[in-house]
C-alpha cells in the first residue's frame, strides 16, 4: 500500500468522510476512491453497496476480483443529558471504541469529573447540535427526562439522517412527548424513528443496566440488517 493512501484513509476518517481502497489481491494493483470520486469509478455500484452496509469485502467484476477496504466514518453517540445513565453509557461506549459527546446546559451535571471518557458541551441542544453536526454515522440519545432540554435535541435529530434516535421515558411519558413534537410540526413517519421506551428489553433496573440496554440497541441498529423477519 502506498503510504499516501494510508495517510489519506486516516485523514478522511478524521474528517468524517467515507473512502474505499480497491485492491487486486492477485496482482497487487491498488487505488483509493474518495467520497467525491465514487460516481466516476468503474466499481461504483459495488462501492456504494459496500459503503451502505459498512462492510469490507471481495467483489466480482468483469475486469477481475477486487477487495474493497471500506472506511466509513467512526460511529459516535450524541447524548443529551449529563445524567447518571449517561455516565454509564459513556463508559460502555468508550470500551466499544465509540466517541461520546454529552450535551447538557447544566454545568453542575456536565463536568469532566463525572465524564472522563466523553466530550462535554455545557450548552443547550439547539446551540450545540448544529456545531456537532448529526450525520448518518451518529446515534442520538435523549436522557434528561426534561422536555425543555430533550425536545430541542430530538427535533434536531429527527431532521437529520442519523442511524439511531432513542429517548428515555415510559410509554406514558413518550406518548406526551409525541404529542408535543407533533404539535411542533413533525410528521408521524419521522416520529416513528424514535426508539422509546429506550433500549433492548433486558429488564434493566440500575443506571448501568439501562445504559447497557441502550448500547445494545444502538449496536443492533448498526450491525443487523434492517427489518429481518423472524426465522429467516
Amino acid at each position, binding site marked *: *500500500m502506498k503510504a499516501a493512501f*494510508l495517510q489519506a484513509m*486516516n485523514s478522511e476518517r478524521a474528517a468524517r468522510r467515507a473512502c474505499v481502497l480497491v485492491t487486486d489481491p492477485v496482482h497487487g494493483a491498488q487505488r483509493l476512491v474518495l467520497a467525491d470520486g465514487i460516481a466516476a469509478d468503474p466499481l461504483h455500484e459495488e462501492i456504494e453497496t459496500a459503503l451502505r452496509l459498512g462492510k469490507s*469485502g*471481495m467483489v466480482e467484476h468483469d475486469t477481475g476480483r477486487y477487495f474493497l477496504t471500506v472506511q466509513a466514518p467512526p460511529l459516535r453517540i450524541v447524548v443529551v443529558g449529563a445524567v447518571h445513565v449517561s455516565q454509564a453509557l459513556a463508559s460502555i461506549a468508550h*470500551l466499544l471504541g465509540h466517541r461520546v459527546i454529552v450535551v447538557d446546559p447544566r454545568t453542575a451535571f456536565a463536568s469532566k469529573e463525572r465524564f472522563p471518557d466523553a466530550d462535554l458541551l455545557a450548552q443547550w441542544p439547539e446551540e450545540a447540535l448544529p456545531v456537532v453536526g448529526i450525520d448518518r454515522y451518529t446515534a442520538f440519545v435523549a436522557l434528561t427526562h426534561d422536555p425543555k432540554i430533550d425536545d430541542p435535541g430530538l427535533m434536531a435529530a429527527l431532521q437529520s439522517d442519523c442511524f439511531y434516535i432513542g429517548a428515555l421515558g415510559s410509554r406514558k411519558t413518550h406518548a406526551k412527548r409525541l404529542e408535543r413534537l407533533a404539535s411542533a410540526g413533525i410528521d408521524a413517519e419521522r416520529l416513528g424513528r424514535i426508539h422509546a421506551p429506550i433500549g433492548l428489553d433486558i429488564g434493566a433496573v440500575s443506571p448501568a443496566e439501562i445504559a447497557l440496554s441502550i448500547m445494545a440497541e444502538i449496536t443492533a441498529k448498526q450491525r443487523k440488517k434492517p427489518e429481518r423477519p423472524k426465522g429467516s
Partner: protein
Amino acid sequence: MALASDSDILEQAEAWHRAGRGVAIATVVETWGSAPRPVGSHLVIDEEGHFLGSVSGGCVEGAVVSEAMDVIGSGTPRLLEFGVADETAWQVGLSCGGKIAVYVEKVVS
C-alpha cells in the same frame, strides 16, 4: 480502556511508517465457515515483529507476523490462506474449523 479498533490500527501503521520503520498491513480478505475475525480486520506489523490488531483469535497471528517480515523485506505482497487441514495444522490453523484468506502488503513511500 478502549481496545484498538481497525481505524486505530491504520493510524498506528501510518505512525510507524512516519517513524521510518518498515511496516506491513495484513487484512482478512475472505472467510469461509466460522471465522473468528470478520473480513476487513487488520493486523499491522513492523520490521521488528511488533504488531497491533488481529486477523484471527490468536491462532494464525504468529504465522502472519513472520510472513509479514518477509513482505517488509521483499516489498512483494502475499495472499495467505489458513484453514484446518489435519492435526499438525493446529499450530498454524484455525481451531474453530473455519478458513481465512489474509492479504499482506508493505507500506511503501
